């Protein structure tokens, strides 16, 4: 990212370029303004594509993020190491163990003593362990005559909290169903049963959820970074000051920066949508065009933010440092991984100040529930308002000759 700092790009080249920006006399002011913006755009596009490092990052990071994040969230319990202490050693207890192994959810490790079991859990080699009591067979018999239910102990390694939470329901479900089948092969009877129906994502697959969130991650993070670094680089090389003394106004300079970079990131969004759709089978349930339009608006916000950060940073490294410090809570607070709803209620206003939170919510609504503008307008309005404010601030920070 050393636009304008290359030894191969002497000052006269930029001077010639800045000269072109002012050189249109006698036309209508709007036409003149457009010509200046166009000159700035051409200049920006050339500079961006000359730097191979930037181009690589612009393509590699979004696709890499999609592929990495797309597959990491799963609600399925598969091949989870499970310790088993079968003190009963009867056909009923063996059936129970076989049933746990058969579902592919658990990989049982059979141990002989209580100590061994506790050690397995404590060392983290199994995520959970079950203890079938010696009296299991008799207890089942008692249950058939309407006695109390047999007891099974389950020990979880709750240091892996999320794992324990996921495994709990699965384990209980399998234990209950097997015991029921053992007591009464015909069916059996909890008094109330539940028939669950899941809308929008019946298999509870995490891919679409993470893919739709990754847009927010990439646009918030990468766009801010690239913009901040590019402008700081220009300031360091002095080419930004040259722009400021041309007849171009602040608005024109900002637009000349934002439009081409915006187009690059809009293309990134399109590329990601394509990779997600073709490569990972995740297409938006709602309108793709609508999604692209919303994303384009959001891109402008990130770019404006990048401009703002660059205005207060002296060096490129400092700009990146600032963008990172700004963006890390963004990953954790915007709902990308942790739902905002789960946060303490008194603090929930805070993530809602970030446009990123709303953009991620909107992407998910479009991708997973197929929502449109009719129901999403409050969020859209917020994103738009955030955009207007940030672009206005960015224009102010440029502070060109009025």
């Amino acid at each position: 990212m050393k636009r304008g700092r290359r030894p191969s790009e002497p000052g006269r080249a930029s001077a010639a370029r800045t000269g072109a920006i002012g050189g249109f006399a006698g036309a209508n002011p709007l036409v003149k303004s457009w010509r200046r913006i166009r000159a700035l755009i051409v200049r920006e596009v050339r500079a961006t594509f000359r730097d191979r490092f930037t181009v690589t990052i612009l393509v590699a990071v979004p696709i890499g993020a999609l592929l990495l994040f797309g597959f990491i969230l799963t609600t399925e319990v598969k091949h989870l190491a499970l310790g088993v202490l079968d003190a009963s050693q009867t056909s009923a207890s063996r059936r129970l163990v076989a049933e746990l192994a058969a579902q592919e959810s658990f990989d049982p490790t059979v141990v002989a003593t209580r100590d061994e079991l506790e050690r397995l859990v404590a060392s983290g080699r199994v995520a959970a362990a079950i203890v079938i009591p010696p009296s299991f067979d008799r207890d089942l018999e008692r249950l058939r005559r309407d006695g109390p239910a047999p007891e099974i102990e389950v020990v979880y390694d709750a240091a892996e909290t999320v794992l324990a939470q996921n495994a709990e329901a699965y384990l209980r479900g399998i234990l209950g169903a097997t015991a029921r089948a053992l007591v009464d092969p015909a069916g059996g009877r909890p008094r109330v049963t539940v028939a669950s129906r899941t809308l929008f994502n019946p298999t509870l697959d995490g891919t679409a959820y993470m893919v739709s969130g990754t847009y927010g991650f990439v646009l918030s993070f990468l766009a801010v970074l690239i913009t901040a670094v590019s402008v700081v680089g220009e300031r360091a090389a002095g080419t930004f000051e040259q722009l400021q003394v041309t007849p171009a106004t602040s608005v024109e300079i900002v637009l000349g920066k934002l439009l081409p970079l915006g187009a690059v990131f809009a293309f990134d969004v399109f590329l990601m949508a394509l990779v997600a759709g073709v490569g990972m089978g995740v297409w938006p349930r709602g309108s793709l065009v609508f999604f692209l339009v919303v994303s384009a608006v959001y891109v402008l916000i990130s770019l404006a933010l990048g401009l703002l950060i660059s205005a207060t940073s002296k060096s490129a490294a400092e700009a990146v440092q600032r963008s990172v410090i700004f963006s890390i809570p963004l990953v954790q607070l915007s709902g990308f991984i942790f739902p905002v709803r789960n946060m303490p209620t008194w603090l929930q206003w805070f993530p809602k100040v970030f446009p990123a939170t709303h953009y991620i919510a909107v992407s998910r609504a479009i991708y997973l529930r197929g929502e449109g503008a009719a129901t999403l307008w409050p969020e859209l309005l917020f994103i738009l308002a955030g955009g207007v404010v940030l672009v206005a601030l960015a224009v102010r920070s440029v502070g060109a000759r009025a």
Partner: protein
Amino acid sequence: MNHHFWSNVWAIAFKEARVLRNDPAVLTMMLIQPVIMTLLFGGVVSNTPANTPWAVLDRGRSETSRRLVEAVQTTGYFLQPRTVFSYREAEALLARGKAVAVLVTPDTFERDVASGQARVQLLLDGSEPLTAARVGSIVTSVVTSFRPDAGTAPPTGIVDVRQRFRFNPTLADRIFYLAALSGMLLTNLCLSASSGGIVAERESGTYEQLLSLPTTALELVLGKLVPYVGLSYFVLALSTILGGVFFGFWPRGSLLVLAVVVLPFVLASLAIGVLVSTIAHTTTQSVFLTVFFILPSMILSGIMLPYHFMPSPIREIGALLPLRWYQIASRRIVARGGGLEDVVGPIVVLLVIFTVLLAIVRWRMKPRLG
């Protein structure tokens, strides 16, 4: 390696430490980040459902169905339920994300329960898979253990599953996060600090000065790393104290063992930074590479989400990260109270990673030093 080796390393380390004093970015990483992250992971972010919006489509409107709704409500995961009067309304709520779950009870619910054959329906919004799965299992377990005569009595199903959650009896997310938080902070510190080092010297021309010194590449690299090892111990201590003071979560195992494990981890992380530094051509490039290394490693290492269920290539990629092994070791010591014998494996892996990285760094630096 000659007899000046350690004195050379020490001299470079001293020079590096003096430069560091004036670096505000490193100070931020050392002091502000641990505080913010501890508060964030200790008290703010969570994967446990809370304030969950839900709705009830109660067809029979009987005393029994009201009890059932109350039984779900008292689990504490839910907001007050909305009442809806039709499936259309229920599905519209789900489609707009205004409810995560809708419980549907039939109009014959009271009679069904009395005859022991009742059935309720649960509609879930699958667009948030983790929440949907948890909410589904919470509601299912409440409903299947529901007794109309004594809705709040201890549940006795077909098997009485006695659950014991070792190391974290209340299944609080914060113990999961805080037990490995130091890994996150140290990755940020070590990579950011060391990745700029050599590039910056090259840019400012002081690298040539260092080269003219009678030091070898290895001495140069090690000397540059030493001050950050000291800083890392400071950050580790700070984050441990913060977790204890703010959230009452003190390490359960030996602090000494933790201090042993952290050394190969910090060295490996610093070596990654140095490697980045030898690859990048400018400071900016090095910071970029660092950032795009740090972010995915937070997720792939298993610090934020369990790595156990990640699909095959991704899981193995994560195993190449020092952070994966440090978080395994740290959880064993801090959360489970393990000792040295429990973390031998991770220590060995970390040392191997460090050695390999050091070899690569040496090879990368050689041509320029020739």
